[in-house]
């Protein structure tokens, strides 16, 4: 019998890419199998489902032609028995954490890429078996313990692992070795490679490079002249080479932002201020949950023609309080937006973030006595909202019917790239 260690490369690494299949829909099927298992279902994100778009759909729905990004109305035409589900991001975040925790039991080197995929470096995990055995174990446990399907790519680096997991779905394990690259990839068009988009592929075509094989053989100098550093990366990628490490550190957020599309075009300053108040409240909530303070406030304003503007300002002091952010957002808006000009969308982004514990706050002669009280008030409100929900306690100005209040609805709002749920608590911590 072959030794386990023979299955590991002598000098290289073994990387898994775990990709959850139709994640949101699969979660709903796992939670309520009697209602959804094997049926055509779609998660659609909108207050009014019929006007919304399909965020994701089950494999049964996909077989009928339902696609992500499609209007719900259109999807229903293709598949009248399609069941529509409102997104429940709280649920997705819980399952996201749980599948990554399973992977974490086989290696501490787990890097979350989005809510439904992660890389795992198992180079040092020989005690659990061969790479294929580990991939099988993880896939089996995710299926049994969580009831979710996933595809796992096994490769010597992140790039190939990602390509491998994409090769067959759902419920597959695919191995892609460096020596497989010419046979598997080189006849494919350039944009099949993760990291090469349509735009780049078009530019490559102008250089008479149509396939990954041609790219792999291309003159590096030519590529560097045309694309800069990215050019060198392109050639390496086409050869299946990628040195980037699996980074388990949940990088500190670089920015925290929220935007909201308004139900109609707003012109009234009071309406706009109320939206900013809700946005400031929610961005600061996320900021405090991650133990950060922000130095820069940026506002996003979109006019009905879809033209979008951003304006930002540096605060004299870093802050974690929504009133500072709100005041600065209103000031920026008043300074840059003419009276009575309608707006379609508003957003606030906090930037230049740093850990509160490491940041020194210069006390202010006129407010230093109030400061500790404000901090205690924030803490108390945070605790109440953690326990009883975002809308359990708000300041009076936040009460409204417009969708800016909806941003407090964490259940129905979210994106696959928002990974606060992993930043607030590491994977080594159990469920609480």
């Amino acid at each position, binding site marked *: 019998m072959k030794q386990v260690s023979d299955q590991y490369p002598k000098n290289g690494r073994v990387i898994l890419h775990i990709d959850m299949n139709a994640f949101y829909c699969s979660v709903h099927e796992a939670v309520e199998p009697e209602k959804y298992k094997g049926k055509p279902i779609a998660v659609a994100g909108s207050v009014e489902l019929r006007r919304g778009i399909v965020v994701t759909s089950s494999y049964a729905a996909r077989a009928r032609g339902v696609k992500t990004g499609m209007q719900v109305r259109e999807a229903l035409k293709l598949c009248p028995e399609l069941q529509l589900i409102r997104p429940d991001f709280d649920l997705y975040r819980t399952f996201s954490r749980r599948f990554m925790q399973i992977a974490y039991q086989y290696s501490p080197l787990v890097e979350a890429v989005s809510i439904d995929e992660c890389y795992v470096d198992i180079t040092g995990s020989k005690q659990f078996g061969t790479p294929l055995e580990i991939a099988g174990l993880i896939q089996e446990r995710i299926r049994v313990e969580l009831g979710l399907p996933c595809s796992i790519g096994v490769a010597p680096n992140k790039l190939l692992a990602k390509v491998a997991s994409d090769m067959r779905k759902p419920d597959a394990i695919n191995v892609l070795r460096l020596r497989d690259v010419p046979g598997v990839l080189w006849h494919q068009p350039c944009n099949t490679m993760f990291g090469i988009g349509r735009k780049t592929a078009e530019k490559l075509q102008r250089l008479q490079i149509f396939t990954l094989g041609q790219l792999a053989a291309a003159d590096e100098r030519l590529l560097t002249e045309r694309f800069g550093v990215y050019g060198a990366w392109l050639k390496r990628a086409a050869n299946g080479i990628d040195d980037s490490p699996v980074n388990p550190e949940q990088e500190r957020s670089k920015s925290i932002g929220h935007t909201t599309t308004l139900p109609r075009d707003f012109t009234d300053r009071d309406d706009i201020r109320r939206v900013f108040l809700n946005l400031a409240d929610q961005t600061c909530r996320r900021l405090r949950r991650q133990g950060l303070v922000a130095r820069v406030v940026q506002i996003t304003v979109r006019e009905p023609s879809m033209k979008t503007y951003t304006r930002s300002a540096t605060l004299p002091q870093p802050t974690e309080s929504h009133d500072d952010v709100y005041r600065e957002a209103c000031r920026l808006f008043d300074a840059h937006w003419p009276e009575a000009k309608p707006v379609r969308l508003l957003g606030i982004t906090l930037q230049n973030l740093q850990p509160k514990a*490491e940041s*020194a*706050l*210069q006390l202010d002669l006129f407010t230093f006595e109030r400061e500790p009280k404000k901090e205690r008030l924030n803490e108390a409100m945070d605790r109440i909202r953690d326990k009883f929900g975002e809308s359990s306690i708000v300041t009076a100005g936040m009460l409204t019917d417009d969708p800016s209040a909806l941003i407090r609805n964490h259940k129905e709002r979210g994106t696959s790239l928002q990974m606060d749920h992993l930043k607030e608590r590491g994977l080594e911590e159990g469920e609480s």
Partner: protein
Amino acid sequence: MKLTVLKEHLNEAIGHVSKAISSRTTIPILTGIKIEASAAGLTLTASDTDISIQSFIPIESGETVVVELYAKGSVVLPAKFFAEIIRKLPSDRIQIEVGEQFQTIIKAGSSEIQIMGLDPEEYPLLPQIEEDKIIRLPSDLLKTMIRQTSFAVSTNETTPILTGVQWTIEGGKLKFVACDRHRLATREVSIDVDPEMKFHNIVISGRTLNELNKILPEQNTLIDIVIADNQVLFKMHAILFYTRILDGTYPDTSKLIPQSYQSELVVNTKELADSIDRAYLLSREDKTNIVRMTMNEDESIEISSSSSELGKLTEQLKLHKLKGELLKISFNSKYMLDALKVMDSDFIHIGFTGAMQPIIMKPEENANLLQLILPYRTTG
């Protein structure tokens, strides 16, 4: 108008009034200097509406004939060009002659310059000031008071009133207060006025006071300070300096200064300043200028700072006196250095009421000067 004037005297007068020339003025004529020749001498005026300065050149100074007057009159000449050309002219005596349409000819040695002057009638009049409220102060004392306070004014235009120094007169005492929200500087003197005289809301721009400071003579010559509704006039020998009083109400800072302390220490000013100056070198790398002071049992303090890039610094400093609770406190070393620089005392007294409370510094033997710094709140 036709006259000759000694270059040295003209240069000096231009230098004084030029401090009131603003490049950003919206009134075109204010980019010029107004020159008036009368039997008594030559008067130069410049203004940016916030401050106006008038400098007078007498016909004679001692034995020297400074101005030779041939014809009276006045003209407004472009300040920047006028100042530069006069400085560069080759001879000691300069002739200025104004002709038709304020066409002005300046002659010196073999050079002749023609410039277009402006109509002096268009030049705004200086404020008319009732001279009934006057205080008198030695010039060197006024300079000291400005130096000890004006550095602490705010440079942030969002609270314009804090960009000024507040002057209070009450019970025969004059007090300056400057504050930028993070620190406060105050200096008080007894003055020889009617004890009934009372002012609370005279706030003069810190920038203006710094300009005034450059003109004020070093000696103890008495300066007359005339206080009117919205103007203050400083009368020096041959110079009148008018400044606007800033609009708005200065916040009440008197209650912010603690009256008793939790911990107190007395330390050699220069030793402390040198130590903090070294710590500042590291702390400024992280832009916060944060320096930590830790009090020790053995009547000493530890001064420390660090930079994530460069490294860290620790030093021990012997104190003259230490009493009360042993405290750890972090502050902006730049603010501390600014304050120490103006203490003018070998030893200083520093009072603390807690790590998140104001730090109060006073010269050991002078209760009239007080510097306050708000510390940094740190959790680490």
